[in-house]
């Protein structure tokens, strides 16, 4: 295969990013970021959610152009127009969602679009399978090249993707959260293969949340925070980069900058929900979802409990299990002292539990319906008579009442909900649950896709809900949000509770330590 001529340059950087910025309709996602990757090096790219890692990845993989700045790769200007362009130039990005075609074999996937052919233009299967055997041996895989990819484990699929990247003679492999779906022994194996590739002169950019893994393997680490460069850390004398240094760079800002604590709180009331030893089993429909591994949790009336955990910690699974959306394998849930076992969301709702899901677009709103119809989906029984006819005047009056209480900005109850801003959509969903007057309300990512100005309004609403005596559980990827809104904070990791503390004692540093570190004590 023809590769662009590359001047061998062992010491200089392979990839150089200088002053790159990216603006999305007024929002600055990346601000003047610079970094470089050298041949035979593993560079960690670290940062919290929203720090700008994904944006940078999209630029490097050719999915989006930068707004400004300069990138050079192997000494030449690097301006890929498409992801395929980037691949041709020698940069391959491996995402969490793997891009293999599950119904095709390993060999077909590796040689997709470039299968070796014979004189008649027909595929030379034997040559293709033999070549595949050699290619996958480089990543330590010894499986039949004719195995369909769907029969492989996630870890094996990942290896196939890495092998494909190598066979394309990629000089830089970018891995986006490659370990999030792997077991511990699979992670060890992946890290050893990364190590081997490094010694062969391949450059790797390792994007991850998992601090220990990163500190163990990375030669250097570039940390992003709020779209800016927060620093680059270097491994010294072969010792791993110290975790506290990384955490400090990742969270580095004062939590109070963005989120003011909404208002004074009332004392927590009696325990509403008591969860003990909650376990779930692996769901064949969602094989990558985390399994709950014995969760104990109390939710009290009038209190907001913040659940802090990284993606894959089991925080959303906990919410879904309590809400009856996922099957519970073991453990107990008590509501107001009585044992409950909701088997469906409808059961949970009837018992007085509500859930504002994390993915508003796919799990909460009915985009083509009007605001009123969106508002009342959880309370159709309240707004209809014994014959099943809707009593629309009451329904409408209730909505308009909430419109005032929650300052929902809308033109009319008939307006289609997808014409509203994210913040106002979220307020409509909160109103949906308020109308049910739940005992326990779980709010997953309360301000995802909500503009900054409206975030504090949503926080204020959550505090009001608690003040009414509702036990509120808030799940959020944004630590400042957890800190601003919670009375008590619980941290999760790998399906377990790893810590619990009153909000005033929590800092981003000690929470991050509990969320991200393996069996370690937080820096109390």
């Amino acid at each position, binding site marked *: 295969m023809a590769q662009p001529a590359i001047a061998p340059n062992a010491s200089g950087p392979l990839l150089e990013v200088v002053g790159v910025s990216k603006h999305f309709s007024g929002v600055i996602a990346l601000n003047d970021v610079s970094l470089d990757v050298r041949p035979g090096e593993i560079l960690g790219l670290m940062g919290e959610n929203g720090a700008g890692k994904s944006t940078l990845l999209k630029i490097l993989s050719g999915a989006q152009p930068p707004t400004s700045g300069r990138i050079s790769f192997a000494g030449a200007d690097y301006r890929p127009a498409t992801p395929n362009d980037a691949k041709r130039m020698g940069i391959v990005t491996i995402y969490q969602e793997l891009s293999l075609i599950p119904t095709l074999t390993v060999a077909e996937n590796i040689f997709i679009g470039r299968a070796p052919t014979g004189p008649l233009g027909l595929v030379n299967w034997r040559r293709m399978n033999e070549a595949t055997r050699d290619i996958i041996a480089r990543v330590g895989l010894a499986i039949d090249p004719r195995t369909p990819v769907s029969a492989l484990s996630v870890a094996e699929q990942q290896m196939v993707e890495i092998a494909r990247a190598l066979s394309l003679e990629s000089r830089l492999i970018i891995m986006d959260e490659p370990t999030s779906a792997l077991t511990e022994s699979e992670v060890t194996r992946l890290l050893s293969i990364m190590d081997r590739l490094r010694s062969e002169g391949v450059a790797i950019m390792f994007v991850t949340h998992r601090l220990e893994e990163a500190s163990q393997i990375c030669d250097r680490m570039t940390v992003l925070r709020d779209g800016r460069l927060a620093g680059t850390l270097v491994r010294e004398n072969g010792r791993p980069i110290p975790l506290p240094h990384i955490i400090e760079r990742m969270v580095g800002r004062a939590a109070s900058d963005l989120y003011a604590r909404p208002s004074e709180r009332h004392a927590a009331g009696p325990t509403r929900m008591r969860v003990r030893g909650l376990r779930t089993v692996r769901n064949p429909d969602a094989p990558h979802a985390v399994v709950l591994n014995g969760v104990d949790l109390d939710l009290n009336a009038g209190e907001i409990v913040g659940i802090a955990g990284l993606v894959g910690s089991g925080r959303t699974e906990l919410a879904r299990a309590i809400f009856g959306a996922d099957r519970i394998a073991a453990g107990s849930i008590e509501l107001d002292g009585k044992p409950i076992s909701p088997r469906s969301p409808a059961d949970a*709702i009837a018992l007085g539990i509500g859930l504002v899901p994390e993915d508003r677009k796919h799990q909460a*709103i009915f985009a083509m319906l009007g605001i009123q119809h969106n508002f009342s989906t959880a309370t159709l029984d309240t707004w209809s008579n014994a014959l099943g006819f809707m009593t629309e005047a009451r329904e409408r009056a209730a909505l308009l009442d909430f419109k005032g209480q929650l300052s929902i900005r809308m033109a009319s109850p008939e307006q289609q909900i997808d014409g509203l801003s994210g913040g106002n959509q979220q307020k409509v969903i909160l109103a949906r649950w308020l109308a049910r007057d739940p005992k326990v309300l779980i709010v997953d990512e309360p301000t995802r896709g909500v503009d900054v100005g409206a975030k504090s309004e949503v926080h204020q609403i959550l505090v009001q809900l608690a003040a009414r005596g509702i036990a509120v559980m808030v799940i959020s990827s944004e630590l400042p949000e957890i800190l601003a809104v919670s009375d008590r904070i619980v941290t999760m990791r790998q399906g377990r509770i790893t810590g619990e503390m009153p909000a005033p004692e929590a800092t981003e540093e000690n929470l991050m330590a509990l969320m991200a570190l393996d069996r370690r004590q937080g820096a109390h």
Partner: protein
Amino acid sequence: MTTSSSAPEPKSGPNLFRILKQFGPLIFLIVLIAVFAALKPSFIDPINVFNIMRQISITGLIALGMTFVILTAGIDLSVGSLLAFCGMVAAIVAKGGAANTMSLSAGPEAGLGWFAALLAALVVGSVAGGVQGVAITRLKVPPFVVTLGGLTIFRGLTLTLSNGGPISGFAPDFRWFGTGLVGPVPVPVIIFAIAAIICHIVLRYTRFGRSVYAVGGNAEAARLSGLRVDRILVSVYVIVGFFCGLAAFVLSARLNSAEAVAGMGYELTVISAVVIGGTSLFGGIGSVGGTVVGAALIGVLQNGLQFNNVSSYTQSIVIGLILIIAVAFDRWLKSRARS
């Protein structure tokens, strides 16, 4: 209202595109009638108008049920076969026997009469629809596949039941439901009108109607809002089955015969009527009013082309084109309304 946050909400006032989007099919129907009337004024004679209405009432009844199904983003391909099956069951109940040879010789009074026949058709239709609904929700087989299976199964059952031939010759009180008049209005038209009004009320003003739109609009969000999604899905297939039974009864009454080959290809006419009427195949958008207009559009087109001596071959071409154009137009309006 104190507003701390940024952009003003887009206004939702009426604009030309919104009006076109809502009334597009109706405007097209009126234009079409005007064109045919201009070509041949006798097209709008009351006799012909009622003729068209009678023609559309059979497929129209099924289209009402299909509207519920398509609103949930489902589809039912079995309606034509189920209609034939229900018709055959109704005929057997009405005549008190299935044997092909005795069908003409047996006196019309031998069986259980029209009411039992109607009841049997409705029950058989509803149960058959319900079974398909359960297969879709419990076995998680897509509606397209389940009802494609139903299409051949019900046709096979009909042929088995009737031994391939028709059952003909019903009592006059039975036949009245197909051929009778109330004043100048044919009875099938009255049945269709009443059914349409009831369906409109159910979809627009009841809890169940709201649930149907919600499930079709976003099944996951509906489930997380506490709706019993599976029950609602089964109900819509019961409803379309019920209407197959009703349509079968009216059709048998009109033809004075239950045919094993009745309703062949009806599924396509019915789905076309619903889709031309603006109901989205992706669910959540649509109305009974739209379906009535869609059914009327197809009826007017068929009748008008026939009136002007256009061959039935050409008619198929025109109706197919209209179907595609209607959906393309809808898409175009949607993209315009958004920008």
